């Protein structure tokens, strides 16, 4: 460890972190305690902004976000786990499959949402051809709250299953193969190996996947903003922040919601980590 010059090298990063992260984080807390209109003077107003968290429209957004988080987490998580099991053992064909499953991760979330917006609305969409197989003509994929919720969850599964598949694969590969050999010698079935070896040893990986999935789903914005604009009761909490800031022109309340969400995320993610650590 050298003692001189380190600070100099760390300076660009320190500057970025200070000005664009620590500063804004403090500013967010401060703004949440001020009446802070988009235009005009700001002035301290105590905790009045936190009333925004109790507004009926916002509580509905919370309920919807939670519902979406449950659906998306389960769908993406199961799909990713299944894919990882399918392609974990190497082979020439498997490499191609891995790439294919992973490819949607390279497409942006906004682009993917616009692509599926096309699929959900285009006359010549393969989805309608698919629905026609079940004798249905012209499903309104985004037409009401539930349709939009499940359609979006399917899109998110397509976009992210491969991404989480890679994380889970890395976890699977870190399990010592000798454990499986030993188990096979002792005559364990596949299911027993899954329950006794794979799942327990995969717990840290699954914790990571779960935390990432829950966080990104609770904070969903792009997909609903693009696919439904929050219509039919599909406004999420982040759409709520955006609405509060730029439609209601109240940055103080938007900041208060942000602070509230951060607090909730810490609680939820902390609970998940503890739960998965203790569950034996």
């Amino acid at each position, binding site marked *: 460890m050298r003692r001189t010059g380190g600070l100099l*090298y760390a300076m660009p990063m320190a500057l970025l972190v200070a000005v664009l992260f620590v500063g804004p984080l403090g500013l967010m807390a401060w703004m949440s305690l001020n009446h802070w209109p988009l235009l005009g003077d700001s002035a301290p107003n105590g905790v009045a902004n936190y009333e925004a968290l109790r507004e009926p429209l916002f509580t509905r957004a919370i309920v919807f976000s939670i519902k979406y988080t449950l659906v998306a987490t389960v769908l993406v998580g199961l799909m990713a786990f299944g894919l990882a099991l399918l392609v974990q053992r190497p082979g020439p064909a498997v490499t191609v499959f891995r790439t294919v499953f992973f490819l949607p991760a390279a497409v942006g979330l*906004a682009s993917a949402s616009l692509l599926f917006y096309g699929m959900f609305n285009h006359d010549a969409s393969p989805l309608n051809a698919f629905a026609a197989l079940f004798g249905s003509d012209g499903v309104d994929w985004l037409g009401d709250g539930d349709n939009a919720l499940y359609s979006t969850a399917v899109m998110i599964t397509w976009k992210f299953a491969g991404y989480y598949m890679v994380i889970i694969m890395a976890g699977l590969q870190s399990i010592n193969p000798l454990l499986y050999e030993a188990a096979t010698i002792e005559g364990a079935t596949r299911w027993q190996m899954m329950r006794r070896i794979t799942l327990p040893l995969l717990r840290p990986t699954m914790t990571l996947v779960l935390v990432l999935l829950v966080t990104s789903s609770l904070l969903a914005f792009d997909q609903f903003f693009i696919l439904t604009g929050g219509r039919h009761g599909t406004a999420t909490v982040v759409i709520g922040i955006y609405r509060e800031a730029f439609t209601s022109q109240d940055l103080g309340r938007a900041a208060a919601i942000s602070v509230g969400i951060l607090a909730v995320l810490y609680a939820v993610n902390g609970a998940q980590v503890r739960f998965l650590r203790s569950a034996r």
Partner: protein
Amino acid sequence: MKARITTCAALAVLFLTPMLWALWASVHGRTGTGQLGLDNYRRLLVYGSGLPVYMRNTAFVALVTVAVTVVATTLGGYAIARFSFRGRNLLFMATLTILMVPHSTILIPLYIMLDWLGLQNSLVGLALVLAMFQLPFGLFMMRNSFEALPVELDEAALIDGCGPAGVLRHVLLRGVVPGIVTVALFSFLASWNEFVAPLIFITDDEKFTLPVALFNLQSGSLGAVDHGTLLSGVVTAAVPCVLLFLLLQRYYVRGFVKGALKG
């Protein structure tokens, strides 16, 4: 084994369908007349301020983001891995905390902050913010990359009369290139595709990035959305990412194994 391959193949078809369909629909006429042509792309070319303008903005933001991320995290990783200085742990922890404060929650104060810095409605301001979001992953990656190189390398070079800058430039840099490629790739994909930040920070049509311009194309139409043009835009936005990804796939996966899991 056979069942596994069949399942994989069926799933692969499902996963490829949306992208292939988008490609197909983007080169076909508006109402599925079955006619092949580039009409959609021609309309996209002249939409709004014009596709070239949006492409240039997006590329500019992505390149500045990549440059800032790479420089800041390479120097920062070097500092944290090889030096001891006041605030070293504080800086490391503060940077990693960025991971725990999701994006969308901090954009409102950033909007005010950029305004105070005179970087409102600015592509450079946008790129700096996007680079900031890439710092935790980048720093982690680069610190690990430097730590993987033996300290004896530094010591030998120092004895040979290199300064700390010389050590970095002549000795260590070559060893951390794979790390840099990974960081650059992640940061490129993230900034090229970013939607919310430019939506809030950029107000001028001539400064919009591709995702925001495409959103305007989708939501600004009256009567019926021009799906053909929209899909040609989606394809245009996705192609650079997909190509880069296919080319550098192993660096991407490396990011997960080295970055995410050891964290």
